[in-house]
């Protein structure tokens, strides 16, 4: 195993990482290539993660979780992402949805959501729409009050775990006349009449993760399904994104570490001019830069997680972390393909998949362009 020298792990963290590594290496890794090819993850593979409790790592014990810190949870998801980030993100999305219901909703809502997930269920966040990506205020999905119920209508797109979930946190306009202040969040059961799973997205990477459209057609939910007060949905979504940004960054570190591991191994074995290519300075420079970016990214993620553990919202820090790490991941995985040469471009070798997997990290949870806007806006406020 490669030593990640940048972090000082506790004995407990080392034990947990060893456990997750053993499971992922033996039970998941052998099936990743074919699942990537097919564009779906077999349910049996997810069972390993559920049995271990990977969907409830950071969830407090009173809700049935393991009660880990954000810091330790992130380390575990980095480890899992080394084997497959699409597999990891299916669990991350689930716990982030539950975590936000616990944060913004009532105790009863938190328990209800946790009980749906605890036995081995996925959850999803239904926010994005075909015309509302970086600009959620433009969403068209509506929630109309009808007695003690709300009637939900609309189409959501790019929903991670869309077809797998037992329960969603859905975002709908309760006041369509206003912008983001008109958005409210609701807990919606996947089997509620009127909820349909739409087209499955045939993605470039993260192909073990399930991404679909979701259609809400006159779905009736009790008014008690609203999370937080009416109009607070946008705030909930932003908080959720702050949290998930740091977690996608940890998975990008996992992808980078895997790219580095594979590249060093290959550069030591591959000989040209009777010399292992790791002895050539231009290859050395690439490997060194890959290591620098991976270690720096890991430290940045770790610090962001520690801030979150202390209650910080990490609006700016989460944006910095996600942007820096996902930009680094592009370079690191691209260079991994470069070091492998022609073989790197072949699906026979693992690195082209890493390059495909990591592209979306610059796009989802807010594009890196939007992140830079956020960072600059916060700077503007901070220096005023």
């Amino acid at each position, binding site marked *: 195993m490669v030593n990640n020298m940048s972090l000082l792990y506790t004995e407990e963290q080392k*034990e947990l990482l060893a*456990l997750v590594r053993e499971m992922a290496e033996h039970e998941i890794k052998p099936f990743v290539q074919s699942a990537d090819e097919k564009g779906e993850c077999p349910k049996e593979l997810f069972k390993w993660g559920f049995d*271990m409790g990977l969907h409830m790592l950071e969830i407090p014990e009173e809700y049935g979780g*393991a009660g880990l810190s954000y810091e330790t949870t992130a380390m575990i998801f980095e480890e899992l992402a080394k084997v497959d980030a699409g597999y990891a993100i299916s669990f991350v999305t689930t716990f982030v949805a539950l975590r936000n219901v616990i944060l913004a909703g009532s105790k009863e809502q938190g328990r209800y959501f946790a009980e749906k997930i605890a036995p081995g269920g996925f959850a999803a966040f239904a926010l994005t729409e075909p015309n509302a990506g970086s600009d959620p205020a433009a969403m068209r999905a509506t929630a109309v009050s009808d007695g003690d119920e709300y009637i939900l209508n609309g189409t959501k797109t790019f929903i991670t775990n869309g077809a797998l979930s037992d329960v969603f946190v859905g975002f709908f306009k309760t006041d369509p006349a206003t912008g983001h202040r008109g958005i409210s969040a609701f807990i919606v059961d996947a089997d509620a009449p009127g909820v349909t799973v739409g087209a499955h997205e045939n993605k470039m990477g993260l192909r073990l993760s399930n991404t679909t459209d979701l259609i809400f057609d006159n779905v009736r939910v009790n008014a008690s399904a609203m999370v937080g007060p009416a109009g607070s949905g946008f705030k909930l979504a932003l908080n959720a994104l702050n949290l998930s940004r740091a977690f996608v960054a940890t998975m990008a570190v996992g992808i980078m570490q895997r790219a580095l591991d594979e590249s060093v191994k290959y550069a030591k074995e591959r000989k040209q001019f009777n010399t292992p290519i790791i002895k050539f300075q231009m290859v050395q420079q690439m490997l060194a830069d890959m290591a620098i970016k991976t270690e720096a990214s890991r430290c940045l993620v770790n610090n962001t997680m520690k801030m979150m553990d202390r209650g910080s919202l990490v609006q700016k820090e989460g944006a910095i972390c996600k942007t820096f790490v996902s930009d680094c991941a592009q370079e690191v995985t691209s260079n991994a393909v470069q070091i492998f040469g022609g073989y790197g471009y072949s699906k026979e070798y693992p690195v082209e998949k890493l390059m495909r997997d990591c592209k979306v990290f610059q796009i989802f949870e807010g594009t890196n362009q939007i992140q830079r806007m956020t960072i600059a806006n916060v700077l503007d406020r901070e220096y005023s």
Partner: protein
Amino acid sequence: MNIVVCIKQVPDTTEIKIDPIKNTLIRTGVPSIMNPFDKNALETGLQLKDNYGGKVTVISMGPAQAQAVLREALSMGADKAYLVTDRAFGGSDTYATSYILSQAIKKLGPFDVILGGKQAIDGDTGQTAPSIAEHLNAVRLTHILDVKVSGDKIIARRQVEEGTEVIETSLPVLCTATKESNKPRYATIKRKIASLKAEISIITLADLPHADTTKMGLKGSPTKVRKTFTPQRTANGVTIEGSSPAEIAETLLNKLVEAKIL
């Protein structure tokens, strides 16, 4: 149902190297693990508990560092762990070890099912667990594939060279598990955390006042090792090549006939 599983900490390698001067195993630089067959035995015990209820107790004899494998067993689902350790137990061979373990089990008992691996990957004797059955006067079934309980009897499938034996017997029984018995489960994150903080109970000589001390330790061990050595490799393997599987098989067949193996 009261189930006890005997586990051993072993070096993580199947290629044991022996110090030619001291005649002992070279353990430097080799991490320690739970003997893999003992893990199968633990899984058998946990499945019995899952199916019929009860309690799984794990027991290991060894130095303080053997607590690591007991903690691992707790993380997989064992309920209670005991480390049997005392200077007086040092140097025990399989006879003495099985005697000490049987006395410790007797102290903790009564037990319905005692489980162990078919052998440890370091010593490879396969003697300790069956000998525990002798000391406790329990039925002994080695190389079991699975165990079902029916009333006060158990029905076990045993792996034998010719195939499988199905045996029905009364309790208590000692069974040894093989790699084919099952696929051991992984720990859960929650159990792993709990196991790191769990208390491991210690059993020393003082806890076994009725045990016969002449059957313990180096002096109580009838086995005398005269010499240990790593056998010299006398011939290298041969790779048979050919254009088709049929051609390769034919070449292999001819070579076996030539060597008078067939």
